[in-house]
């Protein structure tokens, strides 16, 4: 509580008292009282007034500080009006009532927005599932009628599928706990799977694949991991050079298993390297090479990695980029 302002606002009361004191003094003097008695009466008045003012200031200050403390401790501060109890002063009660009304209307608004958001999210998920039916049908139609045209169509379908998956994972990335199952997976099985999902993209761009296959296993969610790898593969193809080659290999460091995805593409500028996982960051490559860089892919990767407890980092030295997924091998899980 601002004490200066408080006292400033008490000024009218004090002035009123002063006027009254002067009036009383004049009256007493006219009715022939002695200076001493007038002085004594005024002194007592002043003391009582001062004590009253100081005590009420003190009480008010303590009360206000208590409320501020309470607000500080509350996690959801909009609930303050419910917690602080009924104030005694009449005007305070009005404020309290106002606060409650404001809080209530805000909660209503928030709930409304929240409900709309979940509804929208559910709609997006539903939509993704529905759009997959025609995609499947188209894919089968193409596979059954092989020609140069259908191959091109399949490449485009891969793209369509990737974008819809991205939408789905974006909608879901908030609460992954709903939709992931951690189990032992062989890392290279997932690598094979994501290569298969991007087969036409890789073949059409003449990307060579170099696998140093091992049987390392980790505990993670296969579906999400596959999605992350897909994003990496797409990026490597996007920022490729002549004769692109993609390498997949595993490094072991202590209790870490690191899956490395290395390409020989144009690489990432040292200045950009720190920021590539930020949302909407496209960097020099995104601006120079392609106009359709969205800066969503790697952002989603990092977000999913965080949820899954996987480390992700990028490394680039002039040309070529190595993306690393770092899995921690937990002895505890292995024993279970």
């Amino acid at each position, binding site marked *: 509580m601002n004490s200066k302002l408080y006292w400033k606002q008490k000024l009218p009361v004090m002035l009123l008292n002063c006027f009254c004191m002067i009036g009383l003094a004049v009256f007493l003097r006219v009715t022939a009282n002695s200076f001493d008695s007038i002085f004594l009466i005024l002194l007592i008045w002043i003391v009582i007034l001062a004590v009253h003012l100081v005590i009420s200031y003190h009480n008010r200050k303590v009360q206000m500080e208590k409320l501020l403390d309470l607000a500080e401790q509350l996690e959801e501060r909009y609930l303050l009006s419910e917690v602080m109890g009924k104030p005694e002063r009449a005007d305070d009660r009005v404020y309290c009532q106002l606060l409650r009304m404001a809080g209530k209307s805000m909660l209503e608004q928030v709930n409304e927005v929240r409900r709309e958001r979940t509804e929208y999210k559910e709609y997006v998920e539903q939509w993704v599932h529905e759009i997959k039916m025609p995609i499947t049908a188209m894919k*089968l139609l193409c596979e059954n009628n092989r020609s140069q045209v259908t191959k091109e169509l399949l490449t485009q379908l891969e793209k369509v599928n990737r974008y819809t998956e991205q939408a789905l994972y974006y909608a879901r990335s908030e609460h992954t706990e709903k939709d992931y199952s951690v189990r032992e997976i062989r890392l290279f099985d997932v690598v094979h799977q994501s290569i298969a999902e991007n*087969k036409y993209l890789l073949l059409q761009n003449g990307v060579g694949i170099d696998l140093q296959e091992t049987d390392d296993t980790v505990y993670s969610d296969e579906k999400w991991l596959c999605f992350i790898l897909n994003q990496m593969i797409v990026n490597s193809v996007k920022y490729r050079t002549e004769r692109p080659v993609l390498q997949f290999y595993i490094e072991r460091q202590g209790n870490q298993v690191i899956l490395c995805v290395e390409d020989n593409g144009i690489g990432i500028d040292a200045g950009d390297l720190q920021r590539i996982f930020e949302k909407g960051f496209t960097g020099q490559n995104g601006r120079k090479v392609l106009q359709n860089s969205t800066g969503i892919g790697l952002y989603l990767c990092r977000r999913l990695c965080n949820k899954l407890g996987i480390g992700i980092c990028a490394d680039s030295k002039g040309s070529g980029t190595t993306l690393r997924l770092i899995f921690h091998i937990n002895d505890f899980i292995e024993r279970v």
Partner: protein
Amino acid sequence: MKHRILIVEDDVVIQTQLRNLLAGNGYEAEIINDFPVDMEQVRSFQPHLILLDIKLPGSDGFSVCSQIRAFSNAPIIFVTSCSTDMDELNSIMLGGDAFITKPYNTAILLAKIASLLKRAYPATEQEVLSCNGVVLHLESSTIEYAGRQTDLTKNELKILYYLFKHAGIICTRADLVEYLWDNQLYVDDNALSVNINRIRDKLSAIGVTDFIKTKHRQGYIL
């Protein structure tokens, strides 16, 4: 013997295309058209394997699965567009053997079907392919001609398998590369030429010449 596969799926285009795909890969496929699924129809067809969609009009795939399980032990592959883990768990609990999400990679689907069929109905005779007197042994990964044998690498075996399967038809290089990729052998165009040459060398060593013919600008033919 042709394996019979039952397709339980409500989307008409996917139904027919799936049947064409399976028929093209040497299976006999039958479609269930009426929903809810008539169990008598399933029983009379006696499928070796069932492709089951989860979202079906009338009753869902899970109940169909448990109904089928009451009289048949045929492998069931769940095919669905909703890929939640709850569904996956349910499908496994109810006796499903595999779970594939749409849009599926046809190569992966076919591979899964083949491996499940192989496990459920072990082939009695060894898998052997032959063409013009040249015999390809898949299990031992060798090729034989007039009593002389030679070993093949994984790449060579797969290339020959594809060519044998399509004997008499021109196989384009792109199709061959794609087939190899489907089998997790990531061979590029140059490596394919190298492999083909190596196969020709091996074939001439056992006395077969001009077995794989090159069609200029088109591909290879047996």
